[in-house]
């Protein structure tokens, strides 16, 4: 239990997937102007990353490792993730059309987001068990969602009353702010 707790804290904050591991910056830079869309996007990523992480783990263990073709990981994973997202979308539309309609855009944003792919690969690289894969993927994605959310909050505040210089508006200032968020996480160093 303790191990999982530490893993969660580490994946969410200390080795935050965006701020420390540098994955998934594009959506953080692009989507975080409003707090609601950050929330929707965050939830979608939590879902897709967890599903993709576990599915890839299963594929790795049952196919790639058994057949000793681990070197095809990259090719297989990207196909699997893409097909999975597609599949889930069809499924969701069938399962709950009103809910699916409310979400609209969030699902397809994910496939080429390097965070989803990166988490799937990291699970294999760090030799996680299935439970660990599940927890790590989930926690990493929650860490991602939190960054998205915090960034949206900070940007909303900056947009409302701030005066970021023209030259730094948009991507540059978001990156710098991400850096500052990462810097603050240094406070948690040594917790794992």
């Amino acid at each position, binding site marked *: 239990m303790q191990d999982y707790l530490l893993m969660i804290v580490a994946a969410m904050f200390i080795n935050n997937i965006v701020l420390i591991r540098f994955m998934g910056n594009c959506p953080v830079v692009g989507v975080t102007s409003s707090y609601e869309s950050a929330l929707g996007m965050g939830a979608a990523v939590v879902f897709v990353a967890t599903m993709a992480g576990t599915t890839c783990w299963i594929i790795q263990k049952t196919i790639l490792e058994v057949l000793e073709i681990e070197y095809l990981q990259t090719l297989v994973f990207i196909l699997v993730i893409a097909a999975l997202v597609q599949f889930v979308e069809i499924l969701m539309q069938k399962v709950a059309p009103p809910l699916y309609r409310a979400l609209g855009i969030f699902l397809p944003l994910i496939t080429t987001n390097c965070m989803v792919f990166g988490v799937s690969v990291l699970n294999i690289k760090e030799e996680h068990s299935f439970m660990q894969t599940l927890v790590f993927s989930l926690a990493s994605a929650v860490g991602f969602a939190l960054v998205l959310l915090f960034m949206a909050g900070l940007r909303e505040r900056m947009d409302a009353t701030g005066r970021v210089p023209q030259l730094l508006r948009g991507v540059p200032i978001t990156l710098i702010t991400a850096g500052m968020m990462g810097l*603050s996480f240094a*406070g948690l160093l040594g917790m794992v």
Partner: protein
Amino acid sequence: MKEPGFVVAVGPHIHSGNSVRDMMLHQIIALLPAVAAAFLVFGADTLRVAAIAMGSAVFWDAVLQKLFKRSLSIGDLSAAAGGLVLAMLLPATVPWWVVVLGTLVMLLLGKHVYGGLGCNPFNGVLIAYVALLLSYPGLVGDYPVPTSDMMMTQNSPLLELKDKGAEFLDETFPLQDLFLGSTLITGTIGEVSKLALLLGGLFLVLRRKISWIIPAGFLSGLAGFAAVFWLIDPETYASPLFHLLAGGSLLGAFFLATDWTTSPVTKTGMALFGLVCGVMTMAIRLWSQWPEGAYFAVFMVSMLTPFFDKLRPKVFGSKFGSHRQVQF
């Protein structure tokens, strides 16, 4: 022109006289007791660091204002006050160039890239402090032995707690010394005398320059969290009183968490912000590699400020409905 040209403007036509300069001046004055206490303990080095910090902060502020094509506003004393607070977080022995680098980071990343005073989401002092601590742990994170041989380093109370546990704390660091400040206690310049900090903090509260709610929340969150662990196991965990008086609790509560720009503006928001800062401080002290957590805690929790600010009071008369639709 036939008539004298009168001024026409929208009200109010009088002003309270509040100004940034006034607020910053108050902050500087409020820190003077702490500087004096540190002077008694660490000697002239205190003044050296404080002077370099304030001077270089003002210098960088002017340079960056020029660079970013802003009007020169060093007269508002914000850079000077920021520099002084940064000096409070550094040991008296810190080399001059570390201070100068720190103030550059503080003013660049904590002020000017965001558009100047009031636009930064994170407190520049904290940005600078953490950046320096990570880059030069030995120069910024080690504290000198007061007065005698400043070349040697000594454990601060919280480091002692981290390294050796809570067992002999009371003997090594009498609470009275912790409170008043003495040569038994080392730490950063601003961590010497809690009495001095309390005086400064109360001065700010009473002059209504900062809200009382944030420090109150901070200190109660910290003490409450510490108390839980202390009650469970007083052998391993230090008492809440120790935690209140050791390290940067009071500095964080009165001078960092209350930074106007990065803390919430609503009362509920302030209360929660303070509370979370206090709890976070304890979490870092207990479980991270750092002995002190107050500064990191404030830094981290300011990420949540926009959310705390969503907890705003109900608009006057909102029982009758929402004001968002105009019905004139």
